[in-house]
């Protein structure tokens, strides 16, 4: 009886919290259909101005921006999961000279994310002449210490006897990696992929530093530029804002399970 009461209270508190949490997005959604005059009012629009969306999207090559974001976030996510798994396998399943030192470098650089070392990274990118290119956007962030760490933790949990059996059967390491480690690590690979994709689709600082031309802009960057140029039309800014949120929302809706799994994989040690 007491438990039931407790659960009811928990449900009510959590639902209220969820409503408060979603409110700003809901407001933005409603306001994106309004006019410049009533855009900051809270409530349903008097008339739904769908034309805001058409007007806003015809301001620039938005499809191009979405493709750029997809190319950038997709390649980074793919590279981070594959390279993470390679290094994670080495750190989890072998004993060798210098391993602890390498592991210390991985943990030591865990907090030196691209947002912390963006100035030195910019200097590297510009000395490679990679400013305003896809390789400039992708290569310097292709490997993340965090994904190596996640992969190492996950692969540690794979049973040694499977690997030993394969070795006795004469399989070489690349074969073991591809036919045992990779298939068994699928949930972990997916998690790294999703986390990295989300992080870089949403990231503003990195494209802001690397990109110069309009046709290389990502969604996050284009939205920032749009806001500066169209500050006097907040309803259009909000329409574009909603559009930029949409792809991740759809992805999240369908892959929810893996997003949430991603969180728990980080916690299991």
């Amino acid at each position, binding site marked *: 009886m007491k*438990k039931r009461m407790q*659960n009811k209270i*928990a*449900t009510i508190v*959590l*639902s209220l*919290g*969820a409503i408060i*949490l979603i*409110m*700003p*997005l809901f*407001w933005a959604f409603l306001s994106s259909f309004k006019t410049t005059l009533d855009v*900051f009012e*809270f409530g349903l629009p008097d008339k739904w101005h769908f034309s805001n969306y058409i007007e806003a999207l015809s301001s620039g090559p938005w499809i191009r921006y979405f493709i750029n974001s997809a190319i950038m976030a997709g390649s980074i996510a793919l590279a981070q999961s594959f*390279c993470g798994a*390679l*290094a994670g*396998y*080495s750190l989890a399943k*072998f004993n*060798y000279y210098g391993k602890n030192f*390498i592991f210390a*470098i991985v*943990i*030591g*650089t865990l*907090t*030196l994310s691209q*947002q*912390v*070392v*963006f*100035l030195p990274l910019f*200097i*590297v990118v510009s000395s490679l002449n990679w400013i305003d290119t896809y390789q400039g956007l992708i290569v*310097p*962030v292709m*490997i993340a*210490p965090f994904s190596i760490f996640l992969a190492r933790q996950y692969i540690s949990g794979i049973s040694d006897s499977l690997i030993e059996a394969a070795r006795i059967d004469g399989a070489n*390491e690349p074969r073991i*990696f591809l036919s045992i480690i990779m298939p068994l690590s699928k949930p972990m690979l997916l998690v790294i992929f999703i986390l990295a994709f*989300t992080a870089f689709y949403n*990231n*503003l*600082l990195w494209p802001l530093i690397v990109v110069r031309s309009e046709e290389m802009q990502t969604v*996050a960057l284009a*939205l920032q530029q749009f*806001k500066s140029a169209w500050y006097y039309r907040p309803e259009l800014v*909000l329409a574009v*804002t909603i559009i*930029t*949120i949409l792809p*991740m929302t759809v992805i*999240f809706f369908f892959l929810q399970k893996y997003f949430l799994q991603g*969180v728990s994989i*980080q*916690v*299991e*040690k």
Partner: protein
Amino acid sequence: MKKIWPYILVGPALIFLLTFRVGPTIYILILSLESRNGLFPTLINYERLLNPRFIEVVFNSFYYVAGGIAVVVPTSLIVGLLLDQAIKGRGILRAVYFYPFTVVMTAVGIIWGYSFRPSGFVNQLLGYIGIQGPNWLGGSGIFAMPALIIATSWRYIGYFALIFLSGLQTIPRSLYDAAEVDGANSFQIFWYITFHQLKPITVFVLVFSTIEFLRQFALPLIITKGGPFNKTNVLALEIYERAFRYFEINEAAAQSMVLISLAIILSIILYNVITRVMK
């Protein structure tokens, strides 16, 4: 042959981390010790940091981080604990709380920037319950940092709540049963079992929320641009402006070293926690 495989496997990652993390960090250290007219080594860039403006930036960063932790950690712990109850619609609630984490940083900034306008929707809602909201992002600027902390926390609370939730779900049921048999009250159960078992997770959340607030760039840039009166200018934003607006690379390098040092301190804490947990 067998001995070199682990090196080949870890090689790409190691070379990469040295080229794009360790190397550039050392390079920026050298740049920070060089004066604008080529004098090396010199501490002049660090001496320049000792002006009231930059000291305020460091103070702002600490304020931002401390305020952020004070909001995010307890709130996400509470949400995590509540989500751990056997409640209806838990799946939906979990998804709703996580959802802000998937929103583009720029969009988060734009929406909260508009929401905190003097007649924006935050003040309209406060008006409904009879509170006259302040001029959040303007005026003398004392409300700007709290506004920024709320906006940033909004994105991370659900994420960290789910981290806590996963931690809670790894606590063995038998511990609770044993405590109940022993006649422990609910406070004792929370303190001696839940809280104790959650310690490593709490440290993880503390360190990672610190990092998120310490390196935050997009939200201060979009919501306040560091204003009013430098009140929300934080490290990442200041370094960006120094380097890319004023082109004072050497001074920006010295400022970067401050941010990097703080990050490295966090890494050392993390390293200690991780190696302890793994043993």
